[in-house]
Structures are given as C-alpha cells and as structure tokens.
C-alpha cells in the first residue's frame, strides 16, 4: 500500500511547500558594513530569516581570566529577538541559544587565525530579527562575512547550509515548516576553498546512504552560498567604485 502511494507521488512530482526544487536554495541576500559602530558587520536574509551580525575586536578580554595565553578567544552570542517568532520568545538566553552559540564558535574557529592575537578576544554577536528555520546556518554565513569585514585574518570564508528529508524526499536548505514537519535535518558548515567541513549535525532519522547524499547536497548548497558571500564583500567596494565614476 505504502509502496504504491509513494510511486504515485513520484508520478505527480512531489512539491515543496514553497514550490522550490529539491536542491534549490531560498532567496539569499547578504549585505556588509551595516553597523558603523561595530568593527565589522553583516545583514543576511535567507528566505524569511533576517539576521544581523556585529563583530568587535580583536580587543582586550574581560574578564581577563578567560583569555588564553597562546591565542585569541572567539566569543559568539546567538540571540533571538522576542519578536523573531510567533508566539513571543523570551529574550533570556535559553539552553538552545547557548548551544547554538557554541556551535557557531566551533564552525568559525578553524577559519580564523586566532594564534595571531594572544590574550585577546573577538566577539561575534548574532541577533535574529526574524526566524524561519535554519537560523544557525544563516548566522554562520553572516558571521563569516562580518569577520572579514572587521579585518580579521581568515583562512577562508565559512558557508553553511542544511539538507534534510521530508516525506521521503531529500531536500536542501530547509525552511521552518520543513524543519518541523520533516523527517531529518543535517546542517553543514563548509570552507569551500579549503574543502573542509567545520560543522556537521543531524536531527532525525536517515539511512547511511541518505545521510551521505544529504552531506553532498549541503556542500553543493554551501558552494552556492559562498558565491553570494563573495559578491556581498565585493559589492561594498564595487558599488562605491561606480558612484565615484559618475
């Protein structure tokens, strides 16, 4: 019974709730240098996610006892605004916020030359203004651009994207609905030039084969995101160039 059902589904072409192709990303827009007070900043719109990231540092660390004598500390803060979801979300940092802060740090640390700034700290503050699933990947995308904008030496940009499974179909870049209703979710962060994975999580149930397919899909997505990140950094200087010529 279930077999015939799935066959029929394939015939009628399974559709995602927002009419995307299975391996299609959501609309992606990144802007850099949006906060004059921060050393570096970025604003990302990934689907209906709206996230702003500010980077400060390298600067003197307080409290001093948390600093490391041999390298800088990367301190990330993931925070969802009370109005980012419906119903309202408490602004106090939750267990989930703390965990995602840590995940962001682990994803970004391999890309930053931390050993060049011993005893100091680099602060990354990510504020989610509107959440629509996959905020951790969007935060990582914006944070790596903001770090570059702050003039912090980096080995590579970090692009991040999730893949998953919904109604037995493998899909890329899950939205909020797919995240909640789907069967599995695999967020991946990837350094495209170094070809290294810096974040790999999984939620749900996948076969080994599907899991490997998901990773490959997510890495392909990361490569597309990487191009947008590059463009956003170039745009900051390219657009000004045009203005000057006029």
């Amino acid at each position: 019974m279930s077999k015939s059902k799935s066959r029929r589904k394939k015939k009628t072409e399974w559709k995602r709730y927002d009419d995307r192709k299975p391996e299609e990303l959501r609309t992606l827009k990144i802007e850099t240098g949006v906060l004059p007070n921060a050393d570096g900043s970025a604003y990302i719109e990934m689907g209906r996610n709206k996230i702003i990231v500010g980077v400060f540092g390298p600067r003197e660390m307080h409290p001093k006892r948390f600093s490391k004598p041999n390298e800088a500390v990367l301190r990330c803060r993931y925070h969802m605004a009370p109005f980012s979801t419906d119903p309202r979300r408490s602004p106090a940092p939750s267990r989930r916020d703390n965990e995602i802060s840590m995940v962001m740090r682990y994803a970004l640390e391999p890309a930053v030359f931390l050993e060049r700034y011993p005893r100091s700290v680099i602060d990354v503050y990510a504020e989610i203004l509107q959440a629509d699933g996959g905020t951790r990947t969007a935060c990582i995308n914006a944070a790596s651009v903001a770090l570059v904008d702050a003039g912090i030496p980096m080995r590579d940009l970090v692009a991040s994207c999730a893949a998953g499974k919904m109604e037995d179909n493998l899909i890329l870049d899950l939205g909020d609905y797919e995240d909640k209703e789907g069967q599995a979710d695999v967020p991946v962060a990837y350094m495209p030039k170094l070809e290294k994975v810096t974040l790999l999580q999984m939620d749900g149930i996948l076969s080994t084969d599907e899991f490997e397919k998901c990773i490959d899909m997510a890495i392909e997505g990361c490569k597309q995101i990487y191009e947008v990140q590059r463009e956003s950094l170039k745009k900051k200087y390219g657009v000004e160039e045009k203005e000057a010529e006029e």
Partner: protein
Amino acid sequence: MFENRDLVVPGDVLYEGRIKTGDNTHRTQGKVIATRVGLVDYNRGMVSVIALEAGFNPLVGDMVIGDVVDIELGYWVVNIDAPENAVLNVPEAIDAPFRSDIDMPRILDIGDTIVAKIVDMDRRRTPILSILGRGLGKLEEGFIIRITPSKIPRLIGKKGSMVNMILKETGCNIVIGQNGRVLIQGKTREQEEMAVSVIHKIENEAHIPGLTNRVQAYLSKLKEES
C-alpha cells in the same frame, strides 16, 4: 589567477608555487592564499594584499590617540584600539623617576585622552607609550572620529600631501593616530564638519585611483556651498 589590483577575499588562491609572500597572505600546501579583503599586488617576485579592512597592529614608532582606562602603581593603562591595552610608565609622562608620593590621577586621570608615541614593545608585545615630545601629551579640546586603521596611509597621503591639503583648505588642526582615531580641532563648527565629511570620503574611496584629485574637487565644492 588574479590580475594586479584585483579585489580578493580571504581564501582566494593568489599563487601556486615558490614566491615571496608579503602582507595579508598565508602559505599552505604550496599555495599562497589571501587572509583579508583587499587588492592583490604582484610586485618584484612578491605577492601581497593591500588590505581594505584591517585592525590596528601596533608598531614601534607609531603615533596613536588613546584614552586612559586604568591607573596602576607606576603606570597608566591606555586603550589604543589594539588587541591589547598599552602601558604608559610614569618616567615617560613627566620626565622624572617614579616616586610613590606622585599624585598620578592629577597628571592623567581615567578618561583622559592622550596623543602618544609607541616607543617600545615589551616581551609579551604590549606596547609601551611615551608622551614626552612635540605634539604629544594630554588633549584638552577638539573631538575625535574613528576610521578604519588600514585607511590611515591614504589619509596622510604621499609625504603628508593629503592631510596638508585638508589642513590648508579647512583651516582645522588635524592629528592622525595610526590606530584610526583622528583628532579635529577647528575654529568654527563649519570647519570641523567640512573636515569630517572629507575624511569620511577618503575612508570610503581609499581604494579607487585618483583620490587626491577627487578630494580636491570635493573640498572646493564644499567651500562653494558654504
């Protein structure tokens, strides 16, 4: 690969093989990669990146503008927007040895802004400052704006040509700290506003050729308007 003066972002492979590496580059697995956004520069067998965004990297001899954040026994702790706070020892502030009966807050208090020179680095690369010398010392008036430290050389110009032009055209006194803080002292508010807008223009367009001429034109346009 890239052409001279192309915009590169971190991770871009600039060269494969043996070559000398300059600023803002990193060698891994026989490849030379960029570590900052900037304009790539292949010159005389060396590859480097002219950074468009970079923090302040303190070097001996730099003039900086900083603010006193703490007073310890025998020295002041000064924030100079570097990865670490700098130290100003008493003998480098009053040209006399430290004695315990010296009233340190009377000389420099927390919150005071100073123009100082980096005279040394200690063993952990903490900058050591001095305020003995012409043009150095505590600031009493004027106001400070901040620009990206990597744009400071363009603001100064070749042998100070750019800053001299701004001085002449606006009539303001301008002190440039290598750490990106710029002090502006003008006779009138209009003069100061003019200097600020010119400095921000330089910061935004530092990477585009023909900067001096454009700034000259911008200054004369501002003057006409006022």
